[in-house]
């Protein structure tokens, strides 16, 4: 162990003497610091702004005067997707999805005003976040610092010298691992410190944060092992550098872009126009409330009349128009759910293809893991969309029920001068409606979603370590 420590200390001393390495290391610390600070303030500003908009929308809704309930169905409601504290570490898809949604009756609107459409073209170059620095920049720094650690010794013949002095190959590799591992820890420290700061925020969950820390630890550890592996196998340090930079470029830049593109092409999504036309078609087949002779609504009316033993809708104990609205909304919402489920399933298939490519690129595995644990991945957005739709449906149906119960059929059908006044119900009705509360996932749910990525990184690490063990035994052979 003493020898291992000695070798590690020697390697670190060499790095410290390398001025370029020191500058690079200082720069990455600065960069991470900037990323933590800007990402955190960005997240807090977004979270605060969305909460403010949400309150404004709720106040506006509650402040609506006496109205016909159906007017409120069209007045609708605005929802703003809340942003969890871990988004300060990895904002994931937040900028790429709309973050506000208009809810109204018989229509399902898109989430609008995503940052990607409000930013300059620079946003497509990547976002400066702690996750970006650790996923992309840190491995390259480790490559620069570590590519020569073993190749240099082989190249210059110092390997033999070390072994003559009684150091075994295992000790040598272990010492270099220790040194580069220490560098990796130091490089990751500011980002992890940022994570700790975020942990102080209300709503930050311990389990996902541990998962993130573990995931990034595995990832950087994997790069340390890979670097030593290449440095051990390749004879010249220049070749080691080129191989490692190529490996980094392919796994961290090329594949994370090419694979999603292929997945997107392989599983087509139905666009909004076709979805709307298809929903309208299905709706006409199920029952057309505009058509007085529509079989579905004729049966619906007859069943109501029979149940209440009356002849005409005017004699029903409640407003038939409200019931018609309830039934119409029920039919259309079922179709919205059906088509949304199909689209979500197709998108999940695309994402599963990308996730599987984590076996080709540890960066892909880590990115999936990181977003899943931070609650900023597609699943998180879907969670918001599904809760928003559930809220929309509940809200509209409550209003439709008000129309059925608090407005009489006679008033609702009247067109005389005073009819408008009689159709309106008290504003207290709107104030009594519950506000939207996003149900955030539990820490266990988030951590569980990150498990596949974690397993893949573990697999990578095991495989790379086994290879390094093999390369260690062959180190310096044939020279």
């Amino acid at each position: 162990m003493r020898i291992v420590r000695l070798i590690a200390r020697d390697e670190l001393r060499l790095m410290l003497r390398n001025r370029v390495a020191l500058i690079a290391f200082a720069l990455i610390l600065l960069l991470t610091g900037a990323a933590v600070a800007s990402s955190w303030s960005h997240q807090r500003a977004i979270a605060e702004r969305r909460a403010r908009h949400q309150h404004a929308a709720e106040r506006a809704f509650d402040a609506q005067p006496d109205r016909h309930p159906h007017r409120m169905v069209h007045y609708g409601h605005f929802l703003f997707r809340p942003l969890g504290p871990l988004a300060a570490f990895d904002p994931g898809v937040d900028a790429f999805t709309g973050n506000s949604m208009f809810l109204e009756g018989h229509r399902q609107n898109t989430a609008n005003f995503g940052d990607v459409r409000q930013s300059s073209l620079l946003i497509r170059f990547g976002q400066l976040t702690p996750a970006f620095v650790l996923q992309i920049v840190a491995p390259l720094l480790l490559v620069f610092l570590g590519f020569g650690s073993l190749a240099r010794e082989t190249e210059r013949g110092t390997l033999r010298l070390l072994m003559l002095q009684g150091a075994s190959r295992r000790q040598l590799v272990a010492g270099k691992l220790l040194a580069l591992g220490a560098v990796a820890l130091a490089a990751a420290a500011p980002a992890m410190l940022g994570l700790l700061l975020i942990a102080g925020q209300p709503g930050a969950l311990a389990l996902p944060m541990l998962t993130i820390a573990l995931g990034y630890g595995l990832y950087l550890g994997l790069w340390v092992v890979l670097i030593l592996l290449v440095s051990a196998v390749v004879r010249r340090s220049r070749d080691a550098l080129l191989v490692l930079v190529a490996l980094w470029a392919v796994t961290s830049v090329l594949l994370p872009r090419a694979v999603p593109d292929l997945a997107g092409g392989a599983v087509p999504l139905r666009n909004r126009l076709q979805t709307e036309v298809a929903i309208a078609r299905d709706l006409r087949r199920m029952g057309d409330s505009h058509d007085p002779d529509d079989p579905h609504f004729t049966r619906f009316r007859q069943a109501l009349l029979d149940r209440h033993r009356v002849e005409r809708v005017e004699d029903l104990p409640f407003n038939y128009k409200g019931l018609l609205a309830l039934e119409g909304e029920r039919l259309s919402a079922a179709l919205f759910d059906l088509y949304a489920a199909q689209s979500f399933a197709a998108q999940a298939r695309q994402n599963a293809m990308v996730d599987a490519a984590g076996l080709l690129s540890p960066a892909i595995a880590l990115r999936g893991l990181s977003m899943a644990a931070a609650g900023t991945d597609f699943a998180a957005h879907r969670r918001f969309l599904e809760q928003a739709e559930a809220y929309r449906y509940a809200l509209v149906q409550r209003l439709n029920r008000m129309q059925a119960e608090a407005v009489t059929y006679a008033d609702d059908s009247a067109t005389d001068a005073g009819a408008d006044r009689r159709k309106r119900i008290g504003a207290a009705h709107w104030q009594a409606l519950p506000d939207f509360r996003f149900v955030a996932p539990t820490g266990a749910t988030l951590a569980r979603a990150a498990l596949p990525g974690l397993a893949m990184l573990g697999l990578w690490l095991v495989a790379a370590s086994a290879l390094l063990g093999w390369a260690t035994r062959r180190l310096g052979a044939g020279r």
Partner: protein
Amino acid sequence: MTLWRHELRLLLRQRPSAFALVLLALLSVAAVATGMAEVARQRAAIAAIPAAQAEDIGAVADYVDRTKDAGSAAYYSFHPTWDAPAPLAFAALGMRDVAPYMLRVRALGLEAQIQDGDIFNPQIALAGRFDFAFVLVFLAPLFVIALFHDLVSGEREAGRQRTLDALPRGGAALWRRRTGLRLVLLWATLGLPFAVAALAEGVAFGVVLLVLGAILAYLLFWIALAALVGRLRWTSVANAATLAAAWLVLVLIVPTLGHVVIDRLVPVGQGAEIALAQREVVNHAWDIPRAATMRRFYAAHPEWSDSPPLGADFHYKWYLAFHQNGDEAVAPRARAYRAALERRDRAGRALGWLLPSVGVQALLTRLARTDLAAQLAYQDRIRAFHARLRSFYYDYVFHDRPFGRADFGRAPRFDDRAEARRQSTSRAIG
């Protein structure tokens, strides 16, 4: 000529160099192919609009024809608009994956419709597109580094430098040949797949030349950087590490830093606030005297004020009027929002003058009409079309003319080319 052929043989005998060139060629071809496939998908989606639209509007016509109510026709009819990809779009898909290229609008308030998006997978969009612009901007410099980092230092390390220095004029012709050969090979591996695809897609010849020039200039920038680093007479390893670090800074780090700075310096008011404000104005109309709404509307649009006065019954002209009032109430905000987006975009492009990576990306997306300016131009076309829709329906609604099945066929049809022409003439007049 034999000297050139000799250099080529020397270069290709180095297995890493030959491998790098083949890989870059494969990547260029793959990127061009995925870009063309994506553009073909978008064209097919646009080509599928008329059939879907005919079915949808047919059903509305069936319903409206019973009452001949023009207001119902205006309310229930959605009209498609689209933004066909420009010939060069395959090379730089730009924002076309996150901003809609098809949008249906109806003659109601436009501000509540124009910001709607299409369905896309955010996790796919987050990764960015694998298009030709990506290969050029992100990957090509790495290949330059691979081929150029040891151009001189490799000879020095092999002990041949002094011999080469002894050539006439210090072997300047040799270095020129070697540099020129590598440049031409890189340019060809990138430029040939691009040019073939561009001509197949019908890109104008001048634009193809312009892009080829941009490729050349971008390669030259990286070669110059490699030469600059080479002059420091460091080892090949140090050269490679320095150049890779420069790539990291110029292609990844500075653009992300720039994004943060621009977001801070150029604030964009929240678009959602426009939607909230428009909704308030529109819905408030139900709580104020209807005559007030009509007065405001007629004051801004006297051409419809010859319409008969409102009765006690609901009339769609009142409904359409307050929707338009709502749009007009937030028009200054919508203009300010748009101006802020343009300011941000300009700031990003300005960085392109300093940063070749950003500059090339900006140039390609501009030429391919896939940038923010193209998005905003599409929104302008939608606005112009929407204005035509309004006057078409208003003519029926405000003059109480019946709207029969045949009238659906008379509705304005979106034609992206004609709309663009109208736009440019109105800009020339204005």
